[in-house]
């Protein structure tokens, strides 16, 4: 899981420094232009900074609101939890407190919904939850979704946002790469469409499995995408990385993604691609 540099880009709620009594939690600071933005304005603008155009990371819940027709999303009923395979003392406690804090069960939300009235299976990873890392539950939910897509003969869309495999579950997390990839090979054999959408950040074991296996791979502008994390590479080669390295634009230039799509156009682009199959 690559959390080093990526983590610094996370947004934080901050209280503006002026003396006017503004309720805490209604304002956020843009990481890029450092301006203070009213949260409602941010939400209306697809979680993009209205001042500098910086893309804020989007929660799984918000992403589904942006992509799926209102009232059509049905989440798969998978009420599952890790068995804590390495027996780490504070891991389960951490998951518990994250669930309360972030308001989601795990680092991915999966279900069936409609995009402009076309039915799809959709999985959306959530970087607010342990950096979207993939452990046994994420691996199972994604595999289950792929199998559901095969069963129902529906297109599959996965929004990736992850630091990679989840360290806290060790080798079991690594094996989820194999499990999800195996399932995708079945989806492929069944002749069904899989669109992978890479958002900031997509790294490690997620990049090296389902993120890079889409029939069509889309990405949001400026997303950081790679296998090895920037710090690991810098340590290995002993020099700093070139400007723009591992951005979506860099991947497009090197031929590893099909298209960069602005957030406001994602829903219609996904729909168009599905219609053109």
């Amino acid at each position: 899981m690559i959390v080093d540099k990526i983590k610094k880009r996370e947004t934080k709620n901050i209280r503006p420094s002026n003396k006017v009594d503004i309720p805490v939690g209604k304002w956020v600071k843009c990481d890029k232009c450092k301006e203070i933005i009213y949260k409602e304005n941010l939400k209306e603008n697809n979680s993009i900074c209205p001042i500098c155009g910086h893309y804020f990371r989007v929660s799984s819940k918000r992403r589904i609101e942006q992509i799926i027709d209102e009232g059509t999303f049905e989440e798969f009923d998978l009420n599952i939890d890790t068995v804590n395979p390495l027996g780490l003392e504070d891991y389960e406690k951490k998951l518990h407190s994250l669930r309360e804090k972030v308001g989601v069960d795990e680092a991915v939300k999966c279900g069936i919904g409609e995009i402009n009235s076309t039915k799809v299976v959709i999985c959306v990873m959530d970087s607010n939850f342990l950096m979207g890392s993939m452990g046994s539950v994420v691996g199972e939910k994604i595999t289950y979704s792929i199998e559901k897509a095969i069963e129902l003969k529906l297109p599959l869309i996965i929004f990736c946002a992850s630091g990679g495999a989840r360290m806290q579950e060790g080798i079991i997390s690594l094996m989820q790469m194999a499990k999800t990839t195996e399932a995708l090979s079945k989806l492929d054999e069944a002749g069904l469409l899989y669109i992978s959408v890479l958002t900031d950040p997509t790294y490690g074991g997620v990049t090296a499995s389902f993120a890079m296996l889409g029939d069509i791979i889309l990405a949001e502008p400026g997303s950081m995408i790679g296998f090895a994390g920037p710090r690991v590479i810098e340590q290995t080669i002993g020099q700093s990385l070139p400007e723009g390295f591992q951005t979506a634009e860099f991947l497009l230039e090197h031929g590893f993604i099909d298209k960069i799509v602005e957030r406001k156009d994602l829903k219609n682009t996904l729909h168009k691609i599905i219609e053109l199959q």
Partner: protein
Amino acid sequence: MKTAWERVETARNPNRKTALDYIDKVFDEFVELHGDRISKDDASIVCGLARIGDQNFTIIAQQKGRNTKENMLRNFGMPNPESYRKAIRFMKQAEKFHRPIITFVDTKGAYPGIEAEERGQGEAIAKSMFEMSKLKVPIITIVIGEGSSGGALAISIANKIIMLENAIYSILSPEGYASILWKDSSRAQEAAEKMKLTAQDLHNFKIVDKIIEEKDEFSKIAEKMREEILSEITELSEMSQNELIEHRYSKFRKIGDYKERN
């Protein structure tokens, strides 16, 4: 019994036998073949044809150097994307000629470099696993040294996984693990004990099917390996092409127990 950290050190010992040492001893014949047919021959993965008795095999093996010069040539056994693309070429060829595949795993991980990223390290690993999932021939993976991260997993989507007693298989190196979880890579030893990375741990998780003991000298271990390969192949050869694919699917499908959430 050795601690997990002692096994990490054994697995990394520069004098430990490498894939080519085993290939030489285990098989009656071996012909190395090169290149990904796109741009390069990456020597950190060795591919070729081999034979035991009248059974032919395709070999895909991660190879560390046995001295400094060879380590430079083999990039210390850390594959670049071209290695995985070469591996995929040989997997497909094996399928065409109905040859079972034996892969040897021994790597610190896929190489983390600028060029490796530019040429799609993540895509190469993903594609290797994806293609392996679909192969209609028996696949056996043998973890002989370090099996670290996606770089090892990329050539390990097998029907049977065998591990040497002192080999390790993990999500990341203990140093990397300690660095990410505790922000302190010097706690690698402590990490190794927690990570469950030994052959026995992997067997308990039902990821590894068989462990080959390392009590005897090298030639005995190689002999045992040869016997295990032949016995596994005899069993897998009974399966139809579809059964082989399903067998592989269900092996990985089951990994990752979970419970009902409260």
